């Protein structure tokens, strides 16, 4: 027995040492834009949309695991691998689309931030400026350790949604039932769109790039693979644990009382009459937290990808002097996105639209790369996909590819 406890403690220690990147990536998939999507879906379709979340959790776990495994085994980022295996032309194209799509996502996070500041009656421009300054300072001044700690703190702050949901006094038994068994789903065009939106906000091209780069930057060795894989599954579960409460919070208030939402951020105000002042405040606070985390992590993704594709030093541990381009790209994205949001004539709707189309174009490509690489024995050695795992991976990829093609095609219709 003593031996067992000792063993367990030892394992826990390693797990904690490895812990971080996969969870941070997964949770940051619930960025400001993500929260808005879940709130809208919850308000419109109630608990019934929870089943989609259940499916998405598996997809997220499988896809992120592939990314983490490739990173640890090959010691290369997704950008490195695409450049070295598929050449410069494809690399430039992929980077360009990723850059545009990420900028669009950062803009929608700033928009969520702006809307929430307005809701709290805060002056928008100064607070946006503070957000930009905060993002730039922690990334350019802090090393990997510091950044990981700040991100993990942001992860903890997602618990505000759990409290919000409890305050809304939901029908817990119905909620859990809807999660595992399809309950009360009315198949309509809107429902399919909402499902794809939930999938699309959780499984993103930048998420795949980021988990890769961030695991690499932590400089873990391949013998920790088991622990990191475990963390990936944990992270996916944890992410949708929060998503669950976001949906529950709006489903149990707005859906039940049949109150329509025009934008996700409004949810913080709209749930107040039913769930109370505190719940509304925590919901709004949660959006600020999520949006800030999204802004930093998505901008970092572009910077990492740039460094990988074009071979520049790209690490949070690199001093500013050596990583000038890396930090430069990061700062450029944050500042540009903030400015775009402040411009009165920019249509956010159009930006979201273009972003979705770009992501819809990129995702199939990325999953093609992921499957190719994880099945390549020269690269992965003993860590290639097993046969059964490959089926899961292919099925997941196909679901994701079909839904992203659906978005891509529908955006041009």
């Amino acid at each position, binding site marked *: 027995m003593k031996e067992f406890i000792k063993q367990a403690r030892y394992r826990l220690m390693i797990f904690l040492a490895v812990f971080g990147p996969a969870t941070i990536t997964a949770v940051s998939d619930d960025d400001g834009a993500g929260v808005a999507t879940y709130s809208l879906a919850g308000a419109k379709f109630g608990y019934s949309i929870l089943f989609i979340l259940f499916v998405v959790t598996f997809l997220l776990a499988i896809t992120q695991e592939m990314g983490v495994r490739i990173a640890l085994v090959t010691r290369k980022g997704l950008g490195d691998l695409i450049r070295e295996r598929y050449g*410069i032309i494809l*690399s430039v194209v992929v980077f360009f689309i990723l850059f545009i799509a990420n900028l669009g996502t950062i803009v929608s996070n700033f928009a969520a931030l702006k809307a929430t500041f307005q809701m709290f009656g805060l002056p928008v421009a100064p607070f946006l400026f503070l957000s930009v300054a905060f993002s730039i300072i922690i990334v350019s001044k802090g090393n990997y350790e510091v950044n990981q700690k700040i991100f993990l703190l942001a992860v903890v702050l997602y618990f505000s949604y759990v409290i919000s949901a409890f305050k809304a006094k939901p029908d817990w038994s119905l909620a859990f039932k809807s999660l595992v068994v399809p309950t009360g789903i009315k198949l309509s065009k809107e429902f399919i769109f909402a499902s794809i939106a939930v999938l699309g906000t959780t499984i993103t091209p930048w998420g795949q790039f980021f988990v890769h780069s961030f695991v690499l930057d932590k400089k873990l060795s391949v013998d920790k693979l088991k622990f990191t894989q475990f963390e990936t599954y944990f992270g996916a579960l944890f992410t949708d644990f929060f998503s669950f409460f976001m949906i529950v919070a709006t489903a149990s208030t707005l859906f039940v009382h049949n109150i329509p939402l025009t934008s996700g951020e409004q949810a913080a105000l709209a749930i107040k009459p039913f769930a109370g002042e505190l719940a509304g405040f925590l919901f709004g606070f949660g959006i600020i937290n999520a949006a800030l985390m999204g802004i930093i992590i998505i901008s970092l993704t572009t910077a990492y990808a740039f460094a990988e*594709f074009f071979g*520049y030093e790209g690490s949070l541990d690199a001093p500013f002097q*050596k990583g000038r381009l890396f930090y430069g790209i990061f700062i450029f994205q944050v500042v540009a996105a903030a400015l775009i949001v402040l411009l009165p004539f920019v249509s956010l709707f159009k930006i979201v639209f273009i972003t979705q189309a770009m992501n819809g174009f990129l995702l199939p490509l990325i999953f093609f790369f992921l499957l190719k690489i994880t099945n390549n024995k020269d690269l992965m050695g003993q860590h290639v996909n097993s046969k059964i795992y490959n089926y899961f991976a292919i099925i997941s990829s196909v679901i994701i590819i079909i839904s992203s093609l659906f978005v891509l095609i529908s955006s041009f219709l």
Partner: protein
Amino acid sequence: MLYFSEIKGRKVYSEDGIEIGFLDDLIFLAIEKPKITKIIFLDKNKKKYTVSIDYVNKINGSVIISKNYLVTELQDNELSVLKNLLDKQIIDIGGNKIVRVNDVAFQKEGEGWYIYGVDVGFLGITRWFGLENTLIKLFRVANVNLTPRFLSWADIQPLELARGKVKLKKEEDKLERLRPEDLADHLEQTNLVSARRILRLLDDKFAAEVISNLNINYQSDIFRHFRPEKAAQLIDLIDIDEAVDIILSLSKKRREDILNLLPETKRKSVLHLIGLSKTTIGGLLTTEFITVSSNCTVAEAIGKIKKETEDFYFLNYVYVVNNDNQLVGVFNLHKLLLQNLDVPVYKFMTQNVIIIHLTTPGEIAIKKMLKYKIQALPVINEQKNMIGIVNVDDLTKYILKKFS
């Protein structure tokens, strides 16, 4: 010079014009001087063929190979441009990531093709999209000269390539590009078009240094083709004596265009020196000189001196010419006496010959003599053939007369 991006995917024809596939890869020896040994092309069914470079008649635009080509295998010490070099991460000696290989440049030298260096700049990326020249032109409108970064093969550790790494021999901040003299030598072995192309890639200061080290044919060709603005910028950076020499070799119109773009003070001093050139070297020229061919031995050279220079008034130097009668080297009598009789002269001659032209002002000629401590300067024409020498005593007499 040729870039890999410009030949990858080009059609491969047999010498009787039959299309047999398209170029996929080049194979090279990972040694100090990386020679291209094989090409790989794919046929319509994407089947790979590896063929020795000996069968290749032409690489440029399209690839033409002999009819009777044989397919071979790769040797152990051979590497592939596509797999071992292109797109690979370059790290410096400290392990820092610098950049990736965006393109690879080749150079024909004699009969063989060699890897000249790797393009690590932004322009190297745009070249793959066929946008390089458009971009250069676009930026030129905004008065920005795009100059790509270029790493010479000499900075790369060939051994590390075989291990899948492109590793440099120095730290990033200590990385120097080619030495100007080396590059100039190298450029003189290529044709003028690629020489101009390489020079455009360099930043002005470095280009100016390289140009000063070139022979006058190249110099005047280069200045005939560069835009007047660029030419003026370069002239401004080149040593003034050298600059005057170059300007005098250009047409009158071209000369004025460039002069008008020079800064005021510089123009004044250049004009002053050009004014002097009206009294040219022609009158001081003597044809009392001796040339030997570069592979002739010391014994033969001494024999030739005995036979031909009996009635010479002055003999300090023996000039060395190649088969085209172009001046390629020089040695003095002292150096000659120190050698064994069977040594060919190219082994000990000085390759960097200080020369003047018929248009060179006497003042500049004397300056060169004093600077390099030479008693006689060879005068060459546009074809680099020697037409005579100017001796220090004739020159000093002329100068004395001028100032008395």
